[in-house]
């Protein structure tokens, strides 16, 4: 997928000026945030569960090779196939090869962030396959030719009217006016596709080493129709999504929906283990899991390993005030919000993503709701450190920090500079007590006055008082 992150600032300005987006983000923020808060308040064990979820993930990462091999053995024993993809190109090729071998025409897809990450739709369409996203949100943005703006609510930025317009263009009129009509229309259109599909591709929330099962969690049931009705079911999933046993899955099921959408559970949790068996009258004839690395193993053992715990619930973005102001598209790639601001630089490189680690106030609200306790602010700061070391920070800021350090390392000079600043700014504030136009400081005073200092510094007054 094309990386739009270099145009972050430009995109944020567009987003901030979009009243529809503002309304949509306001709604979702309230819905998800309040929903989570209400549910978590009713589960006294929740904090203990977060600790355990973190610990299980850490345990898996420390033994990832073993659990991957065990998962592979379990899938194989159930008659399925495991494919290993070192990078996005590998992953695309594996899927394309399967589609070609089974002579596929129509490919349906349940929601899979990994498939977005590896640019699977474009690759399939290039080869002439008809690709249909079946999650309603994904379907909407597929019609709009846009990337998702949220990892669990991909079309959260679209209003009902915008969806109606897209549907009218794609399906013909008359234009629908209610959400109910829109959902029914999508239901009828997509129903045909499920039955036509040769290959159904889904993601995998969890890959269970014990049983060789892949698990999806959805509200719509689209993933189930996708994988049940197609001849071939392909799961694309990151290598870090392994959990050892079903009992570990229980733990994650208890925190996932509560963190993600503020529900006690999503409507459907589905475990898939191998293909159709003797006597079965439905289900896929083939079952494949594509294990995608694509940079993940390089995160292991380093400063960013904690990020591999991520279960893609979206709680961090739901609670992020920056995401809440600008939405997901500004981040410019697959993963938005705090988790995206960490992952995108790691996946696509620091150079093309210079804004992402910086467009954050380090307020820590994301970390406070992360079900697997990823220290997101610390990881963002670490990325800033990498930027600093590689000379990728804004030169003006680097100079300012250098000058600040020079002065702050010299207490007498520092105090002198402060005394001067206190006087000059006080004078500039005049009788108003504030500065409306700060020379050279438009980034501050474009939107805010600068409250004027009181005229003398604290240390100066303190010394005077002691004498």
């Amino acid at each position, binding site marked *: 997928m094309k990386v739009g992150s270099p145009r972050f600032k430009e995109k944020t300005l567009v987003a901030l000026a979009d009243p529809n987006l503002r309304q949509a983000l306001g709604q979702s923020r309230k819905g998800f945030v309040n929903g989570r808060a209400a549910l978590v308040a009713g589960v006294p064990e929740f904090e203990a569960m977060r600790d355990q979820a973190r610990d299980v993930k850490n345990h898996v990462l420390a033994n990832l090779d073993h659990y991957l091999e065990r998962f592979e053995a379990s899938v194989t024993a159930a008659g399925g196939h495991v494919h290993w993809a070192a990078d996005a190109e590998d992953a695309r090729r594996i899927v394309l090869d399967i589609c070609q071998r089974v002579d596929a025409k129509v490919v349906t897809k349940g929601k899979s962030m990994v498939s977005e990450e590896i640019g699977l739709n474009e690759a399939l369409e290039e080869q002439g396959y008809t690709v249909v996203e079946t999650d309603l949100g994904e379907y909407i943005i597929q019609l709009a030719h846009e990337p998702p703006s949220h990892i669990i609510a991909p079309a959260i930025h679209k209003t009902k009217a915008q969806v109606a317009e897209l549907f009218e263009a794609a399906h013909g009129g008359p234009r629908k006016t209610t959400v109910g009509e829109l959902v029914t229309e999508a239901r009828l259109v997509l129903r045909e596709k499920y039955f036509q599909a040769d290959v159904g591709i889904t993601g995998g929330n969890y890959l269970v080493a014990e049983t060789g099962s892949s698990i999806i969690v959805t509200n719509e049931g689209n993933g189930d129709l996708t994988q049940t009705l197609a001849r071939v079911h392909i799961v694309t999933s990151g290598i870090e999504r392994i959990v050892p046993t079903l009992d570990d899955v229980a733990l994650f099921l208890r925190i996932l929906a509560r963190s993600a959408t503020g529900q006690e559970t999503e409507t459907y949790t589905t475990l898939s283990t191998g293909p159709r068996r003797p006597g079965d009258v439905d289900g896929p004839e083939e079952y494949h899991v594509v294990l995608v690395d694509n940079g993940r193993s390089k995160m292991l053992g380093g400063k960013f390993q904690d990020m591999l715990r991520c279960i893609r619930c979206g709680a961090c973005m739901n609670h992020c005030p920056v995401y809440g102001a600008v939405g997901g598209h500004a981040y410019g790639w697959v993963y938005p919000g705090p988790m995206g601001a960490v992952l995108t630089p790691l996946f696509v490189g620091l150079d093309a993503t210079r804004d992402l680690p910086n467009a954050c106030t380090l307020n820590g609200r994301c970390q406070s709701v992360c079900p697997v306790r990823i220290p997101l602010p610390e990881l963002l700061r670490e990325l800033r450190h990498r930027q600093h070391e590689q000379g990728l920070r804004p030169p003006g800021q680097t100079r300012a920090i250098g000058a600040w350090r020079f002065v702050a390392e010299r207490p007498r000079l520092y105090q002198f500079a402060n005394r001067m600043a206190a006087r000059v700014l006080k004078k500039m504030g005049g009788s108003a007590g504030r500065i409306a136009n700060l020379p050279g400081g438009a*980034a501050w005073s474009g939107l805010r006055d600068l409250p004027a200092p009181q005229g003398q510094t604290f240390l100066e007054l303190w010394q005077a008082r002691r004498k």
Partner: protein
Amino acid sequence: MSPRVGLFATCLMNLFRPNVGFAAVKLLEDAGCSVEVPLAQTCCGQPGYNAGDFDAARALAKQVIAAFEGFDYVVGPSGSCMATIRHDYPKLFADDADWRPRAEALAARSFELLSFLADVRGVRAVAADYAGTVTYHDSCSGLRELGVKAQPRLLLGSVGGLKLAEMSDTEVCCGFGGSFCVSYPEISGRMADDKLACVAATGADTLLGGDLGCLLHLAGRLKRCGSPVKVFHTAEVLAGMADGAGIGDQQEVQK
């Protein structure tokens, strides 16, 4: 025996709002502490740390560590600076056998002002009056890194004449975020406006908070929009020293 407290004079307090420093001194002395202010102090180093310049942060951290050795406690009227000292200094020196113990020792006795008063000194009430309805913004570092939540409310509850009207989303960031507020002014402005809409909805005439970064940012935006809402640091109200001009308001002519 009264504990010796070194006051950490934060950069913004020192330059913009000495009144907050004197309010802190009064509150600490009222709580039975003897307060000193080391003159060799400058900045905690957080600007460098958050800009990814860990060397700069370490250089300044060493200066702070040296300046405040020997005190029973180090207290500052800021959740942000004190969280840096408490949580980040030990991390900055994690691989430094000489400095790590010193950083940890400092971290262990460093506190944000109100949590120190309430949690360490057991202060339950202050002797102050404030005639007005206030709303309190939970600054993020204090709230999430230091657990400053109940203490300001407890102490504000003892201020005569003061009515506290809680705003919705009080735990949501105001958009200051250090250099963030000038690197991404438009996003920062939107966050400020969201926050100030919550403030306005309470009908409060005064906005309080524990960090001058947030307060300068919010006061600046309030005043730009022509709002009459006054802004003070919580310590000023608790010390009975909020009788002068609010942050960003017209100041009396100095004699």
